[in-house]
């Protein structure tokens, strides 16, 4: 019972997250402006991190935790750099 | 002592980080974690950040509770807007809030709170004027937001940091 429940809830959750990523990708691909794309990327990062966490549960292993941790801690660096580039035309002044 | 522990709070937080990372509270990890936390704090000291002073630790927990509740509420509110409205975001708009708080750390925490709460986003803080530019998704009544932010968050934050 619990196995069935967990398996299907996780599969479903991953599909939902996958759909969420598709939504983010829509912004990523269509824009229209650079900030929209960057926002899409940031969302994609968060969604991907959650996907990794669900994946960790699904596999019953904590080996994937660090991947999620790294996304959560450092994923923003790329988007910050992009945002700063938009604002200042330069990442490091 | 202050040369060893320039930022005791930070050091403690880093030790906690270490122990959480390693999922262990064994003496060995505590020793190693302490050493590393002190080293990391020294690293931080090199950047010469402004030293935050936390005056009322109790307020920290109150604030945390309030924010948590607000976040859940806003989540539901924003979720409803996204799902239900025919054309969501029609009520969105910018607003300016004058702030009394000057502490950069306090402002930083405020920015996190505001931005983390769905429905509001921190746009710009004009240090010269002490005004904060916000974007709000459901801007029906500006005063509600001013009350929330100044009353619920800024006051507590000023208690903590100033």
């Amino acid at each position: 019972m619990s196995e069935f429940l967990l398996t299907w809830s996780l599969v479903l959750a991953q599909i939902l997250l996958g759909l969420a990523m598709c939504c983010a990708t829509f912004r990523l691909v269509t824009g229209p402006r650079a900030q929209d794309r960057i926002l899409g990327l940031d969302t994609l990062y968060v969604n991907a991190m959650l996907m990794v966490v669900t994946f960790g549960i699904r596999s019953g292993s904590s080996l994937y935790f660090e991947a999620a941790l790294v996304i959560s801690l450092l994923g923003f660096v790329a988007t910050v750099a992009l945002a700063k580039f938009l604002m200042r035309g330069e990442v490091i002044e | 002592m202050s040369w060893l522990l320039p930022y005791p709070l930070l050091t403690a937080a880093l030790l906690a980080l270490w122990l959480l990372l390693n999922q262990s509270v064994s003496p060995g990890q505590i020793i190693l974690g302490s050493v590393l936390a002190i080293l990391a704090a020294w690293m931080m000291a090199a950047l010469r950040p402004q030293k935050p002073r936390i005056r009322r630790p109790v307020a920290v927990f109150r604030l945390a509770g309030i924010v948590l509740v607000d976040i859940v509420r806003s989540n539901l509110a924003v979720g409803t807007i996204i799902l239900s409205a025919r054309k969501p975001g029609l009520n969105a708009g910018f607003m300016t809030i004058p702030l009394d708080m000057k502490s950069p750390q306090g402002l930083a925490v405020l920015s996190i709170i505001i931005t983390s709460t769905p429905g509001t986003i921190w746009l710009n803080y004009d240090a010269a004027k002490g005004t904060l530019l916000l974007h709000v998704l459901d801007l029906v009544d500006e005063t509600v937001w001013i009350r929330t932010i100044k009353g619920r968050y800024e006051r507590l934050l000023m208690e903590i940091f100033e």
Partner: protein
Amino acid sequence: MTLAHDFPVWAAILVAFFVLGGSAITLVGSLGLLRLGTFYARTHAPTLGATMGMGTILCGSALYFSVLETRPVVHEVLIAVFITLTTPVTLMLLARAALYRDRAEGSPDVPAAERMEEAPQRPESAENRSEHEEPAR
């Protein structure tokens, strides 16, 4: 997939609830990216996933592993803390950059900077845009 056979049903139900709930909230937030009409409105959308979506899924995870390993597993807190610290940074910087760009283009939909009205409008502002993106629709 190594899901334990003897995992207690109550915990399974809770985990399933957390995980499904979290991902549903995240999906709603991401849906906002599609549905909301302006960039500034859209910036609110991902916070759903980054706050409650993340929180519930992490709760599910913590619960799952705590039950599985019969010890408290709470290192998910770290992810929550980091996301809470970092997502606002991105959003603030990005939204402010967008504001600057909209102001520079003289967009009427954003509040003008105090002195911006007096600053001469750049005639070539349209060109500036063409570098990185299409004109706003």
